[in-house]
């Protein structure tokens, strides 16, 4: 009897443990990898689609992620989990294999994206309210560090949060015009924070180059960008592309451009200009402007195909039904078409054979051959916005 009871106890404990971790559920699924999976944010309904980029199809929908307007995501090193950053401060860990929520915390009132450390153990979230950055354990979502972005004006909204090599995060203070580097290489708390002041007025977004060396913040309040070479010791910001508008009148900016997709195209970087119908080409060594291309509207994303030969550009309202493709060598537009109303985001497969495009007001994601521009598939999605593939797990800054 005692043995039986003991066996029952062990069995029930095992069952509880198994169901709590989702092992039972996972074991019912066919074995598969996650390297060709991704997620599509459905911004209006607080849901996302788990997609298979090989089959060009939706595997499942996950609901209950809160306000996903302007949501973004990063991936665990094993490419099994997506960490989704919602607008409402929600940080949700989604299991791509089981199609379920593995963890969720509402960690602030208003947020704008995040990053995962190079060792995959820390997830950081950039917050508008309360202004600052909070860092969580990637396994448990327990709070590891709270970094209020204090400046003389109170708490600053933070933007442009990225991971940097050496268990560091870099982010920028919108109100204060400062870039901060939070170094977790010696453990969680206290992390070492380096503050770079006076980088410029109203930095609106930032990026880190794929090698983790350069951090570049775009400025809304001034023509120009702030550059930090993280290999310098001590690090110091410098201004690049100063006065690229040369005093010309800016157009009203209906949507802030993103710098995240800003990638190396050959030996040049390509980036969207703020308040202009232009993309700028910047020499990757000198950071001097070497060309600019007139485009269809105010660019939002200028994303290089992974080989760097082409740059795909989408545009702000009210000209957001169009994509233009620019040849990075000639800086000329080589292709232009209208996928549909409100093209919000473009995501290349890891080696760039295809690109997925969200067309919000058509409730569709379109899949294109990235060389022939042939449309290969269309997937139904409700107000789709950001598209994120698991291959980002192994790229710095994405």
């Amino acid at each position, binding site marked *: 009897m005692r043995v039986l009871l003991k066996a029952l106890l062990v069995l029930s404990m095992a069952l509880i443990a198994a169901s709590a971790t989702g092992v039972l559920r996972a074991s019912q699924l066919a074995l598969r990898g996650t390297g060709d999976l991704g997620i599509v944010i459905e911004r*209006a309904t607080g849901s996302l689609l788990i997609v298979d980029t090989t089959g060009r199809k939706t595997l499942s929908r996950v609901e209950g992620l809160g306000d996903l307007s302007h949501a973004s995501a990063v991936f665990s090193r094993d490419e099994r989990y997506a960490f989704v950053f919602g*607008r409402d401060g929600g940080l949700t860990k989604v299991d791509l294999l089981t199609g379920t929520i593995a963890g969720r915390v509402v960690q602030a009132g208003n947020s*704008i994206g995040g990053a995962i450390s190079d060792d995959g153990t820390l997830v950081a979230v950039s917050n508008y309210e309360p202004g600052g950055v909070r860092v969580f354990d990637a396994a448990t979502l327990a709070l590891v560090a709270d970094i209020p972005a204090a400046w003389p004006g109170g708490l600053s909204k933070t933007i442009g949060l990225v991971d940097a090599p050496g268990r560091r995060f870099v982010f920028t203070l919108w109100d204060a015009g400062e870039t901060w580097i939070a170094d977790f290489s010696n453990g969680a708390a206290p992390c070492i924070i380096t503050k770079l002041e006076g980088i410029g007025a*109203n930095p609106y977004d930032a990026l880190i180059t794929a090698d983790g060396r350069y951090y570049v913040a775009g400025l809304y309040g001034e023509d120009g960008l702030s550059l930090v070479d993280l290999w310098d010791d001590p690090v110091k910001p410098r201004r690049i592309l100063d006065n690229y508008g040369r005093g010309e009148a800016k157009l*009203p900016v209906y949507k802030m451009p993103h710098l995240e997709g800003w990638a190396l195209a050959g030996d040049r970087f390509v980036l969207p200009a703020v308040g202009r119908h232009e993309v700028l080409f910047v020499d990757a060594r000198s950071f001097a402007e070497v060309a600019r291309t007139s485009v269809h509207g105010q660019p939002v994303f200028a994303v290089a195909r992974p080989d760097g030969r082409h740059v795909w550009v989408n545009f702000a309202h009210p000209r957001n039904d169009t994509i233009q493709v620019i040849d990075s060598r000639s800086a000329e537009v080589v292709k232009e078409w209208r996928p549909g109303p409100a093209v919000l985001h473009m995501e290349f497969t890891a080696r760039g054979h295809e690109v997925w495009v969200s067309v919000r007001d058509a409730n569709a994601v379109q899949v294109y051959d990235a060389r022939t521009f042939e449309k290969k598939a269309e997937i139904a999605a409700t107000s789709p916005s950001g598209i994120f593939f698991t291959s980002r797990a192994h790229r710095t800054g994405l």
Partner: protein
Amino acid sequence: MSRLWVAAGCVLCWSATSWAGERWSGTVDPARAAALERLVLQDCGSCHGMTLKGGLGPDIRAATLKGSSPKAIKEIILDGVPGTPMPPWRSLLSEGDAEWIAHYLLQEGGR
């Protein structure tokens, strides 16, 4: 005639959100109203948040805007706020559009 009364009601108690629960529709037709509602949630939402509780731009929910006049809000929409990222929408929206949005925000934004 009934439309006139609704209009009069609007003028008298624009800030009272309780009147009959009927949507203010004075300056645009229903199709335009639907397009404007989408614009507010999706495009204004890119800075103010889809629930309008704020982002890079401030909270513009009805409860927060309470006490502001529709005229002041309309002017902010059309002319923007210099020195901030709020752009002038005059080249994209008519006076009637902006007026409709101002009333929309005061009555239901962020509900």
